[in-house]
């Protein structure tokens, strides 16, 4: 049955739990494109027949193939665009540098899209207010308290806070630090917010 492969691509995305990016299904895409090529070529020859030999009985199958072509285009675009949305979310979740295991699931064009998106976002953030700009990927939650208790999950070396004191972030050490300094490190998984 036509369009089965393209539906399968969409189901693949539905199956993966919210937001995660499965590997780029290059094979699946290639198969859909091949089906489209075959349908189009069949239609081309049928259209010639219908016009030339007056075979109007071919018209319903021409219409059917055209619908399948449109459906394939739509499903394929939906699959690719949904992946882009997941990749976009990665910028907000992980920051500018993606973990290698995620990058592995992206094709080179998707990486290009991501890099361009990063740049656009950075340009926008820099332009806010006119001076240095504002990093709007920070401050994702309303501030509840000034200082928070954090535990270090991995060795991160030295860390300087506002009044000049240097903290050594060693694995499993616990610190009482200003919240705004820790946000980025918490999101990267270096620190963990300890709630007592």
């Amino acid at each position, binding site marked *: 049955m036509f369009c089965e492969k393209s539906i399968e691509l969409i189901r693949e995305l539905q199956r993966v739990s919210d937001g995660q990016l499965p590997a780029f299904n290059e094979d699946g895409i290639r198969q859909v494109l091949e089906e489209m090529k075959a349908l189009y070529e069949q239609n081309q020859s049928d259209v010639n027949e219908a016009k030339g030999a007056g075979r109007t009985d071919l018209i319903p199958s021409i219409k059917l193939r055209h619908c399948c072509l449109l459906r394939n285009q739509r499903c394929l*675009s939906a699959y690719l665009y949904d992946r*882009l949305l997941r990749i976009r979310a990665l910028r907000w979740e992980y920051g500018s540098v993606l973990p290698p295991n995620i990058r592995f699931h992206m094709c080179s064009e998707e990486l290009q899209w991501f890099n361009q998106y990063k740049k656009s976002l950075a340009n926008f953030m820099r332009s806010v*207010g006119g001076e240095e700009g504002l990093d709007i990927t920070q401050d994702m939650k*309303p501030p509840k308290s*000034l200082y928070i208790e954090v535990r270090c999950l991995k060795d991160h070396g030295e860390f300087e806070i506002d009044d000049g004191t240097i903290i050594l972030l060693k694995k499993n050490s616990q610190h009482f630090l200003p919240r*705004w300094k820790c946000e980025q490190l918490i999101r990267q998984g270096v620190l963990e917010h300890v709630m007592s």
Partner: protein
Amino acid sequence: MSDALSEDGSEQNDSQEELMTPVELIAKLEEAWLNEKFSPDLLENKSEIVECVMEQLTHMEDNLQRVSKGDMKASVHRMEIDRIRFVLSSYLRSRLQKIEKFFPHVLEKEKSRADGDPSYLSPEEYAFAREYLANTETYLKAVALRHMPPNLQAVDMMKAVPEPCLDSFVFLRVKEQQDNIMVEPETDDQREYVVDLDVGSQHLMRYRTIAPLVSTGAVQLI
């Protein structure tokens, strides 16, 4: 607000066209933030408020440097800076999310507005939206569209990307008295009717009905 702010308040006011105290400025920011958060559609851009708030934050940060560390006031000011920065970031994020979600429609709306009308996108947001569109189109072409049959190599973005749902319900509080607001019927048995919106009252209505009132500031989305 505290003395750290009021010092700058007077400096600020001289250089602005609209005289606004810091309190009024932050109140306006919060109103814009809530409206943007709860509206299904992208609202007019408020870049003057964004700029003023950024200036305000810079001044507050500078003042904080001068206050002696460990002073009780310093932590309160710090908290205040963080709160304002959160609201501002959240406001800009709301707008960016809507721009990304409805990008072809947002660009079309901006292109087709009359010269005198206020703009929905700041110049930077417009650049961002255009880049987003170009980036996405380039990607789709490179990965799939150029391999498709000749008559299918384009995707109409206006049709492919859904429009904002202006019929979604929103909660609102009335700030200025509005009389004779026409409400569309919900079912076939009903007919359209008018309501009066009294100051201070709260309602749940379809966004489309009260959209113009949000831009004029007559109602506040909550």
